[in-house]
């Protein structure tokens, strides 16, 4: 069976399968409850606790429809995405080599890991004020905090991945006369790749969380001066919607962030699968 026909078989059997329909039913029920809950004041004369204050799905949908036609909204999305990618790639660039160095050299590990472990429990957001003091621009400070978010996860995963490479691969390679560089390129790198992928997928979720938080806290960064309700990134957008009292926008913003985060994870996972085809073999 060709790859395409295999995939379409999977998709079609998934859609017909009970999995899919039960999930759909559940989501619809959830949306109905939400709708009723939001309108509880109008429908029942008193507002349900919690849900009663939330804007209804129908209103949110309308808001989303309006927002996707506004360029400033997409600009916010772009800003947030850019920050996520910057921080994320910086974390990979620094984290992977550092992790490998720590895994390979016992001495280096002994020196750096304790400091690493001490810094790790400090939540990335706690670094925000320190970062603002240290870095010249606000953009850089957000990038730094974002970097921290993914950095720790990636390093831990790389170390774990390098540790779990079966020592016999090295023995086999050495017995065949491989040079150090060869061993690095052909054994360590592919061996660590699955863990890097896992670390990256988890790390990007954290990065999104940190970006949104940082945007909220530091008021959107240097681009915040663009004005309007949709400047300065999605986090800032949500906060501004709250301040401006537009609750439907809040939820619309949340949904957009959720969607963006989900898509970036999915894309990463797909890239990961392409890079490690040997894992897919049954």
């Amino acid at each position, binding site marked *: 069976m060709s790859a395409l026909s295999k995939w379409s078989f999977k998709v079609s059997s998934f859609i017909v399968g009970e999995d899919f329909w039960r999930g759909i039913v559940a989501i619809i029920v959830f949306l109905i409850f939400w709708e009723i809950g939001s309108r509880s004041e109008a429908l029942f004369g008193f507002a349900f606790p919690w849900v009663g204050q939330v804007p209804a799905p129908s209103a949110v949908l309308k808001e989303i429809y309006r927002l996707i036609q506004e360029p400033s909204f997409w600009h916010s999305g772009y800003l947030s995405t850019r920050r996520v990618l910057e921080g994320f790639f910086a974390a990979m660039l620094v984290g992977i080599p550092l992790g490998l160095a720590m895994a390979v050299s016992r001495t280096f590990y002994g020196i750096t890991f304790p400091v690493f472990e001490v810094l790790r429990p400090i939540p990335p957001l706690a670094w925000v004020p320190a970062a603002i*003091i240290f870095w010249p621009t606000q953009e850089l400070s957000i990038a730094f905090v974002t970097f921290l978010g993914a950095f720790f996860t990636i390093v831990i995963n790389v170390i774990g991945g390098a540790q779990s490479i079966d020592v016999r691969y090295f023995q086999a390679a050495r017995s065949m006369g491989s*040079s150090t560089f060869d061993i690095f390129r*052909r054994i360590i790198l592919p061996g660590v790749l699955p863990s890097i992928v896992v670390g990256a997928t988890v790390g990007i979720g954290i990065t999104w969380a940190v970006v949104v938080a940082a945007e909220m806290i530091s008021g959107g960064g240097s681009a915040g001066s663009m004005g309007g309700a949709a400047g300065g990134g999605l986090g800032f957008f949500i906060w501004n919607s709250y301040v401006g009292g537009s*609750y439907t926008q809040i939820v619309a913003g949340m949904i957009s*962030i959720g969607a963006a985060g989900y898509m970036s994870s999915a894309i990463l996972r797909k890239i990961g699968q392409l890079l490690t085809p040997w894992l897919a073999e049954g």
Partner: protein
Amino acid sequence: MISAPRGGRGDDTARTKQFEIKSHVMSQTELSHSRGITATRGNTDGHVSTLALTFHRAALWLQSPRPYLMFIGFSLFLGFWYLAVEVWKLPRFAEMPGLTTVVSEWLSKNPTYGLSIFMEEYYLHIWVSTRRIAIAFFLATAIGVPLGLFLGWSKRFKQYVFPVFELLRPVPPLAWVPLAIVMFAGSETPVIFLTFLASFYATALNTMLGVESIDVSYIRAASCLGAKRWQVFRHVIVPGALPFIFTGLQISVGVAWFSLVAGEMVSGQYGLGYVINTSYTMVRYPTIIIGMVTLGIVGYVTSAAIRMLGNYMMQWRTRELALGEER
């Protein structure tokens, strides 16, 4: 993946040392092979052997190069900080509080900015943050673990509930802040809700994963032996998922601190996140660092506490790992 044979280069023994990756971090196995005290056969007196074990491990640790490397690492880090701010006065570090300033502030009986280990307010903030974490974490565990267990155990339940669960998950905790403020009255509840949410997802997901990764042979064996479904659940599923549950709980506590700090920085009064934020706005820079360090310590302690609880509850695992034999 392995390259074609080439002429051997250099010294074989050097390469051996360089690629001994497995050994140096697997301290458990190292220790277990060298220790004279093993989890003894049939010895149910846990207390004596654990204590002796701890002393033995401590002695071994002191004999290894690890404490000295650790010392070097910290000296480099702290030394650089000290030098960069107070001696070389690097321009980038101009506004940063120096190491000595922070330490003296932290340990002073009469701190300039009001926060040190002798100040009551310091402990108040720690207490407030910890209390929030405790409530949120407890709730998240109480709801998340059973939910995760059922999601893993009943396929039908998962089909209904998991899609909704996954729908809400991608929204980062902080994005919930404004909505939480709208939904919940008061200033405490939104912050706790936020923390709860993040914690809950981590716990439920890991628990579910734990149940799903239980070897089906255990379940089959139990059925063969006459266990009914609820008995299988109680005697196989729950203990079998315990390792994953505890990993999940450790992650969950970390995530909880993450969200709590974020929440405290945006809204709420008191608490370590609040301290850090206000210290910044009120230009009390050394206190920022004090807050960060405190956060690190408290965060580490809570994680470690859970890990120790897990080790205690899963005696069978600790003993198995301690032996580390070839099987």
